[in-house]
């Protein structure tokens, strides 16, 4: 039931608004609202009960194993949430004077330094508000770089075909044309094709390594030199940073610029869709173009004093990309995570996420599931393809996924990357224990058996959720995007 359907005209959560009304008389009639907005009129308890019960209709990391590939659903420390919710942090106005912001600024500065170190980049700007905005910042910097050299011919961004949709979308938002590079059957970029594609129009290549195929791009150095030799720059999509954190630095692979999805690798909660944070790191060449604001540190009378760096300090900056400082609260959570992991813990992220993925991959393989890249090591994630199940049993990747929900596991990413048919991209992350991984594989085995014995049953899954399978076609055809009083009465 919608909250509006629990509404009663005249009902209110009295204690939540000021108790006294002061009629406004100094605003011209014509600028005033005539009819009050159709919002719910409910009591405080109704609100708490409604949204508490809604929350119970979600899967989440706090309740389930959630091996959604490319999304790095690892444990989100409760302490990180709590520390970002300390009243002093919550109450700080984004435009508060620097003298009364040293606590916050020092956290941001420290985080910049840590991110620089663990990515091997030369500068970090924290401001992008998610991965996609980090990509935007990165590609905009690439553009600023070429522009500053008056190299206006470079109009193309190269992107492997397995790339995430944000990559091509971003390139276009930055005014570039997109040229796709095929991926070979081992999950690697087709080097020959790349070599053919690069040229004087190449502004840069966007890629992630390990790729979205869940394998490490072994020719990364050759790719890098190919692009660099042609005068292009190399962008690293940090969505897969969890796979290498502590093992390889993007800077050392030859990347000129990258973003980090802190809501993945740095364990900040994904909140049912966001917020994230997509700080970018840059090599020497792009340092002058970093987006503002950035936090700088001065020493005044032997004391550290932090301040905002802006256009005055970075005259060639691509400028601000958010009204204030991006998703500051997310950054505080990531800072917490970075400090708790520390020097030693940082190395273990790649190690244990890789261990878990390879273990699961092996168990899947042993159970008879088909791996997309059987000869390869898994990185932090791996792909199985259910195309034989689809063909022989009529049970496709989506059916399998829906049935998995009934077993209490969130489904892996399905149908991405697009080049693998009927694929599941499985990412267990390092914070899951082997028991959980085993349970998942056992559920897969059961579903396989169910598919063989009763495909129709599996195809009509799920059964145990609050709704059965939803009609997406109706949703798109008969758009119903908001409740309105008329429609209901």
């Amino acid at each position: 039931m919608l909250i509006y359907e629990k509404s009663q005209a005249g009902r209110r959560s009295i204690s939540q608004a000021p108790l006294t009304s002061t009629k406004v008389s100094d605003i011209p009639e014509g600028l005033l609202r005539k009819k009050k907005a159709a919002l719910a009129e409910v009591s405080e308890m109704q609100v708490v009960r409604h949204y508490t019960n809604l929350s119970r209709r979600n899967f989440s990391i706090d309740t389930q194993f959630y091996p959604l590939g490319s999304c790095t659903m690892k444990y989100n420390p409760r302490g990180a949430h709590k520390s970002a919710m300390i009243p002093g942090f919550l109450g700080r106005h984004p435009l508060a004077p620097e003298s009364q912001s040293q606590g916050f600024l020092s956290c941001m500065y420290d985080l910049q330094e840590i991110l620089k170190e663990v990515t091997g980049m030369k500068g970090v700007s924290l401001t992008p508000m998610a991965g996609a905005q980090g990509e935007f910042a990165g590609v905009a910097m690439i553009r600023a770089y070429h522009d500053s050299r008056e190299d206006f011919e470079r109009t193309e961004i190269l992107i492997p075909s397995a790339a995430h949709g944000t990559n091509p979308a971003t390139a276009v938002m930055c005014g570039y044309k997109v040229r796709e590079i095929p991926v070979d059957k081992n999950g690697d970029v087709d080097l020959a094709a790349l070599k053919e594609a690069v040229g004087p129009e190449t502004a840069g290549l966007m890629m992630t390594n390990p790729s979205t195929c869940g394998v490490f791009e072994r020719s990364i150095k050759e790719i890098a030199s190919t692009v660099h030799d042609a005068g292009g720059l190399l962008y690293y999509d940090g969505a897969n940073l969890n796979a290498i954190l502590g093992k390889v630095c993007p800077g050392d692979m030859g990347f000129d610029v990258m973003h980090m999805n802190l809501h993945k690798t740095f364990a900040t909660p994904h909140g049912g869709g966001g917020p994230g944070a997509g700080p970018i790191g840059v090599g020497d060449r792009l340092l002058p173009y970093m987006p503002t604001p950035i936090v700088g540190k001065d020493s005044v009378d032997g004391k550290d004093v932090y301040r905002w760096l802006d256009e005055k300090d970075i005259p060639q900056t691509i400028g601000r990309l958010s009204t204030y400082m991006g998703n500051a609260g997310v950054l505080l959570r990531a800072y917490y995570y970075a400090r708790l992991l520390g020097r030693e813990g940082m190395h273990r992220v790649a190690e244990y996420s890789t261990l878990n993925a390879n273990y699961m991959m092996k168990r899947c393989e042993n159970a008879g599931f088909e791996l997309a890249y059987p000869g390869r090591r898994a990185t932090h994630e791996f792909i199985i393809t259910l195309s034989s199940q689809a063909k022989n049993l009529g049970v496709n990747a989506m059916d399998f996924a829906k049935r998995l929900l009934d077993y209490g596991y969130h489904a892996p990413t399905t149908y991405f990357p697009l080049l693998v048919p009927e694929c599941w991209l499985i990412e267990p992350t390092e914070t899951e224990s082997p028991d959980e991984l085993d349970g998942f594989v056992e559920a897969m085995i059961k579903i396989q058996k169910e598919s063989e014995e009763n495909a129709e049953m599996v195809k009509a899954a799920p059964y145990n959720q609050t709704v059965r399978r939803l009609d997406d076609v109706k949703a798109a055809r008969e758009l119903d995007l908001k409740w309105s009083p008329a429609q209901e009465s």
Partner: protein
Amino acid sequence: MPYIPHTDEDVKSMLDTIGVDSIDDLFDEIPKDILAKNFDIPEGISEMEMMRLMSERAAADSNVSCFIGAGAYEHHIPAAVWDVVSRGEFLTAYTPYQAEASQGTLQVIYEYQTNMANLTAMDVSNASLYDGGSGMAEAALMAIRANRKSKSRKVLVPRTVNPLYRDTAHNIVNNQNIELVDVDFDKQGGNTTLESLKQYEGEDFAALIIAQPNFFGVLEEVNELTDWAHANGMLVIAVVNPTSLALLAPPGEWGEAGADIAIGEGQPLGVPLSSGGPYFGFICCKQKIVRQMPGRIIGRTVDMEGKEGFTLTLQAREQHIRRSKATSNICTNQGLVMTASTIYVALLGADGLSLVAENCHENTNQLSKLLTSIDGVETAFDRPVFHEQVIRLPASSASVLEKLAEARIQGGIDLSTYYPELENCVLFCATETKTNDDLVAYQKALASVLAS
């Protein structure tokens, strides 16, 4: 190992299953020469140590009386909001890709869309953008796509629109050779006049942006401006403060036909100031241009048994389907904060929001009276405002604000930073959180700073 559950035995038996000797073996596809060295970062600390560090740092920024607005406002946030939002099921879910396992999030978004559409009196809302400033960029891009009558890549932007929004939007759209053209404001009223727009008549612009209230708190003549834009073939992008919509005419009702797109900063709806984020941008539009809308949209539908349910819809606008042809590159949005706003709006309702708006407005008026009772302090503009005000001081605003800060009063922002012509001007607001004592304390502090 923090957050890693593996015991030595676990590792051993897992490696056995995989058939390798060590974890390092799993990285044998990586060229040896690029393997990472030791990091020069602090050693890991415990939660206890970190909580103390963070508490001390937060305390350093605390105990201030804040009268800064400028797009982010200190409002009372009901305790229930973040208690419920912080439930693991909301906090630690991903984007609702598996609709059947995400009905909670999906229904919340549907309710959010309803709230925003009904508040703005627009037809539809998306599921949130990053923030107000970047939202304005998306709106400009959307308008350019949506205005079929115009071939222009230019959008008219009054200087009364939040300069941080203008800056952000410029930085985003300029990569596509889109131009945001400044429109100057009336020095007496602090508003955008039809006169100042006249010069653009006949020229091709995709849209006119109208902020209500504008950055100075001043109320624009939104009806006239909207009709002018429509008459000149432009779409209208409204930039609005959601709190104000409890009192002010909603964009959907501006002029004859209403604004075409409405965007704004969602922060006032239950989101803490929190140094500027996470906030959320909202964007609403007329039904006929919904397919140009960026970001996620949730639709109501039914399941196999005819039971009501919610799901992602119109995904063909989005990057994961349409890739380079998508309406935007946005993927992760501000879901959790949007959830908070949905609970906030449910707790306040239209009447509660009105009370908040009225009390903010009254407090700002009250403070304005108190401050202008000081010799030499006067309001900078003569038109009606909503809940924010500009005063001109008889001294440098930067140095006055600095001295106020020493008394732990954050008196507003120095407008001359953004508008050199508005020398000695301060933009402030006093929301419903301020008591009369707070206002008087500001007055006294200002009087004493000016007297010294």
